[in-house]
């Protein structure tokens, strides 16, 4: 007997007052799973991620306008010239944040997060831009202006951005 292997259901849609599609009221639906695997390059900002394994927090500076980019930008978008690497202390101040009550499960690291979690924008000391990352802290205690620092994790991660997150400065 012929069969469809994917999960299937067949619905009868009511044509209602508009009978234009009365002949097409039978609807079949399938459950399909599509998965893709990529080789993903971190390109010219790779060194940022490699240095996290050495517990060093890197940013880039534009030699022309002196802006310091964290996250790093290999190209200064204002001057259109290549930047160079500088190391930051990894301390900073929360500028704004949200308290997220669901995890989008974007990867295994994110799927493992305990909700609610704090998604913070931090002005690192010495930087010109805000660095977005998780702030592992009691959401009720987090405020704009709070001092935080980069914390280096020890356990294995899927994406190297999870080698760090922010924690409050004690």
């Amino acid at each position: 007997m012929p069969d469809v292997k994917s999960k299937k259901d067949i619905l009868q849609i009511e044509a209602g007052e508009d009978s234009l599609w009365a002949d097409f009221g039978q609807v079949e639906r399938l459950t399909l799973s599509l998965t893709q695997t990529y080789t993903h390059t971190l390109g010219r900002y790779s060194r940022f991620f490699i240095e996290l394994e050495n517990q060093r927090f890197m940013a880039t500076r534009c030699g022309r306008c002196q802006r310091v980019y964290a996250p790093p930008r290999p190209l200064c978008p204002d001057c259109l010239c290549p930047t160079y690497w500088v190391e930051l202390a990894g301390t900073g101040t929360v500028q704004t944040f949200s308290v997220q009550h669901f995890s989008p499960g974007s990867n295994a690291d994110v799927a493992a997060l305990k909700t609610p979690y704090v998604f913070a924008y931090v002005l690192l000391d010495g930087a010109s831009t805000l660095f977005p990352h998780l702030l592992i802290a009691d959401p009720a205690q987090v405020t704009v202006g709070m001092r935080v620092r980069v914390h280096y994790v020890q356990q294995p991660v899927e994406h190297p951005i999870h080698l760090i997150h922010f924690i409050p400065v004690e």
Partner: protein
Amino acid sequence: MKRVPVVVGIGMTRFAADRPDCNPRDLLTDAVLALLADAQLQDLKAVQHGLCSYESDHFNKQMTLAAILHDQIGLTPVPNVRIEGGGATGALALRTAWAYVQSGLCDSILVYGCETNGRGVSSQTANQLFALSADFDWEMMIGGTYTGFYAAMMRAHMQRYGTTAEQFAHVAVRNRRNARFNPLAQKPMELTIADVLASRPVAEPYRLLDCSLLSDGAAVMLLATEEWARAHSAKFTARPAVYFSATGCGTDTMRLGDRYPELTNFRAKRAAAQQAYQMAGITDPLHQIDVAELYDSYSGVEIQAVEDLGFVPAGQGGASVASGMFDLDGELPVNTDGGLLGRGAPVGATGIAQAAEIALQLWGEADPRRQVAGARRGLTDTHAGIATLSVVNIFERRD
């Protein structure tokens, strides 16, 4: 004025969380049949160009959807182009059509938008797919979501200007109430501010009822030179002429953190509005615009929008919204059809649906319970990301 496009007709499906009876081509079919009825056209054979508006190959499970849809509605062999601009796709599609007509490339162009963002995927898959439109390594991989980015902006707005959750809840209540008068709206609701504040937190300060909808749906708009419209649509001469008179577009950095120190508002939206106002000769938008469709992806975003569009000064969005200034009986009614919160938002169709509502309002053909009396000029505000790309389009009735 010779080549300023006119609106020949509009067509829309009902927007819904789930349309199991329709795939994208079925949805578009229904919108096109609605257009034929609206413009009193027999077919599309005189239309000179197609313009397909959809955002996501992932949600639609199809690349080259433009080719499939163009074929579906019998537009071959006329030229076609597909426009993608994130959340602003539909508005950017109309803006592109404006340029195609103005340039003389064609005298008529069908802008057709369609998206299946509804329950074809789980909400977790939907979040993952939308997160792909964030910066992959720096935002998506840490669990960032657009709800979270918008929420962080709103927190900064609250911090700087004293904007309150009650004020943005007003938007959530009003837009869903407006949707009650729109039979094509996805989620008409009668709510109170207390209901919004009691809904579960999603990304604080935003709660469930502050968030807009994921939808399946399609919307189309036929634009043409006035000469083409007169020659091909009897309906065009039977109702007041509505011109697509001005358009503006602005952009901003991909990541919010790169906009520091501005975290509260949308620079791209200010730029888009400025261009459109200049083109339309508008110097006092609050009084020179009669009706507007604002991009209320989250309730507080409307508060930011009324500031960036120059309706009220920066910081006064919260108080002005809460005062009822933008309600149906207010000074400048907005989101009369329910907005993204009440009407719904199938991305590629959203900007076109907004423009369709403005056309209805200017023709005087909206449901009487949401019709703005004597509306002569209307605006649509649509953006992508956290206003990473922003489009403002202006329509005017001339008779």
